């Protein structure tokens, strides 16, 4: 097993770190700690922008994140103790972070690499509805709609609300059955789409450690796949999460956790959010031994990440990481818009451009309609995202800002209307698994419009 010593160290620190009430951790460690470093490192953001243009600011955010994380730590809810690492330890571990990893198998294998700001190398696209709910009958066709897209390098399943018609219950045998069912169906979708070795992640419906670990075994998730789990906002864990990590390490899986700081929450506004996102990504590597680190910073009212308040600090945090570490980072696009809305495509444009020029290694999604409406997603928006991503590799941040602003102007007024769009069955022909004419036409219109703003598509 990899990382045995480091894992033991994490477990021991979770058992012996400073004991503390969770509320004290929230108020003093998170809120107080963020406020302190924002002031000490003079973190001030030009709120008119969408994409950070200031390298010195990005470097200060990185320093602030290291300082904050060393003083704050990660809270273990199972023991009420704080897992602490010193600044020296954090920096030392970061220096050993892997800068590339092979995902998948056979002819479907892809290489994920740590990217830099304005890096011309293409990020990977995990084209997927990222755990959005889906009815059983649409699971495989909707998955194929993503897997068949040439721009898609990896995928993740949607979430089944039922299995064999029965509702899934957490911590029951049904959860274990659901985990296996999801793995079986996902692998079947890969096979049918002719890309059996494509890397996947998933088991998103498995909340408990037992649920997830059941299908994270031979016959289910493969060691060449990404093994994903979430940590609790902000900077919290528990034994169930550490159990998942331990199992993944024993399976020699690719550790791919995520943390989703909430805007306006304990980290406060944009400045605090930027530091908190960067710190959370560092913590994923230092404490959770992540090979790849991911986030989908969340809006507290709309649950998307395409508001300017979210995009800008995310851009700053990811540039801070790209400039100062070799971490492989990923971001999930969570737009408000759904299929057959231009809003969705404009949101994907702005967010994808931001991710690409800010050094992100892998883009996930889009989780259309914020992942809240059953079946409101389709492969066509992943195609669009992939094309924008490939084109954005040739942009500098100045031009990226200009195009992202134009897209933002188009969709920002519509976010409050929550244009969730249409169900997969209404935007795809279920026999051919191809988009219907109306959706395809809208996609082409928006693509032409974005091209007229200066984004040069390859085809």
């Amino acid at each position: 097993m990899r990382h045995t010593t480091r894992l033991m160290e994490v477990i021991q620190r979770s058992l012996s770190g400073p004991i503390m009430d969770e509320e004290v951790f929230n108020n003093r460690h998170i809120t107080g700690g963020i406020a302190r470093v924002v002031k000490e490192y003079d973190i001030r953001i030009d709120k008119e922008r969408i994409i950070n243009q200031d390298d010195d600011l990005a470097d200060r955010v990185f320093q602030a994140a290291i300082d904050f994380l060393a003083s704050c730590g990660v809270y273990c809810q199972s023991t009420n103790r704080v897992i602490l690492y010193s600044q020296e330890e954090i920096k030392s571990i970061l220096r050993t972070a892997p800068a590339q990893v092979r995902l998948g198998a056979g002819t479907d294998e892809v290489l994920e690499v740590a990217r830099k700001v304005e890096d011309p190398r293409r990020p990977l696209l995990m084209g997927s509805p990222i755990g959005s709910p889906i009815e059983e009958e649409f699971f495989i066709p909707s998955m194929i709609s993503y897997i068949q897209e040439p721009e898609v390098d990896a995928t993740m399943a949607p979430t089944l609300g039922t299995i064999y018609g029965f509702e899934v219950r957490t911590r029951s045998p049904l959860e274990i059955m659901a985990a296996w069912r999801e793995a079986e169906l996902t692998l079947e979708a890969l096979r049918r789409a002719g890309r059996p070795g494509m890397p996947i992640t998933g088991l998103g419906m498995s909340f408990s450690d037992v649920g997830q670990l059941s299908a994270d075994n031979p016959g289910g998730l493969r060691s060449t796949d990404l093994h994903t789990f979430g940590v609790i906002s902000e900077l919290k864990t528990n034994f169930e999460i550490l159990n998942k990590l331990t199992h993944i390490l024993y399976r020699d899986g690719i550790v791919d956790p995520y943390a989703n700081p909430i805007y306006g929450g304990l980290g406060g506004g944009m400045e605090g959010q930027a530091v908190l996102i960067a710190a959370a990504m560092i913590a994923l590597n230092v404490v959770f031994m992540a090979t790849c680190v991911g986030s989908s910073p969340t809006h507290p009212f709309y649950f998307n990440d395409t508001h300017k308040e979210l995009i800008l600090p995310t851009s700053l945090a990811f540039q801070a990481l790209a400039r100062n570490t070799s971490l492989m980072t990923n971001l999930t696009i969570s737009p408000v818009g759904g299929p057959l809305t231009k809003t969705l495509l404009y949101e994907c444009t702005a967010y994808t451009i931001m991710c690409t020029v800010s050094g992100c290694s892998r883009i996930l999604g889009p989780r259309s309609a914020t992942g809240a409406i059953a079946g409101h997603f389709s492969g066509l928006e992943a195609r669009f995202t992939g094309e924008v991503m490939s084109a954005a590799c040739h942009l500098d941040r100045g031009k990226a800002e200009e195009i992202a602003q134009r897209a933002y102007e188009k969709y920002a007024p519509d976010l409050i209307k929550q244009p969730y769009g249409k169900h997969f069955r209404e935007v795809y022909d279920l026999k051919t698994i191809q988009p219907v004419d109306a959706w395809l036409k809208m996609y082409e219109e928006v693509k032409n419009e974005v091209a007229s703003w200066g984004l040069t598509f390859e085809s």
Partner: protein
Amino acid sequence: MQDETTKALENLSAAIKNGLEDEAEKYTRQAIESGIRPLDIVKNVLVPTLAQVGQRFQNFEIFLPELMLAGEAGERVTAILEEETLKAGQPSFTVGTVVIGQVAGDLHDIGRNIVTTMLKSNGYKVIDLGHDVPDIEFVKSAEKEKADIVALSALMTTTLPAQQRTIHLFEELGKRARYRIIVGGGAVSAEWAETIHADGYASDAAGAVELCNHLMKKQPHPHE
């Protein structure tokens, strides 16, 4: 005297806005000593001040830490005024009791904390059961606290069925009619709320307060 009273109320409002609990207590006691009725302090200072704070949070002029501090100051003021009211033999001015929690399988806290703070700020007694709450605990707590409203939060799509299941459990135990059950959280939509026969859905914290106010006006307290 009039000026002093006005000043005390202005100071109280400022103390709540700034989350200064001790100062808020001091100005509350000053206002009571100067003869202002607790209910008038609630109507004229506490509710409008906290409504302003809530609106500032919705506009992102302030953030969760400031909102929670103001909420805590508001809670301290409410406790003092409630004590004075009961001492004078007047009925409680608590708007209603809400049992809230994150349904089974959901570990998120922050969104629910925002709603809890906003409800408390608006005169509700809130019993927060925390996250990953087993279905039966909602029933037990609603019974114990004689709740008016049960609020089920789910941030993850995977935990939506637990909202439905909890409502079914209330039905199965013959207790559904006694409570207004509302749902919210990132994974929830109005359509879903309708599907599972919830009594209401709110997309954000301010909406949750409005919804509770609406439901409380709609029918008399089921326990009365």
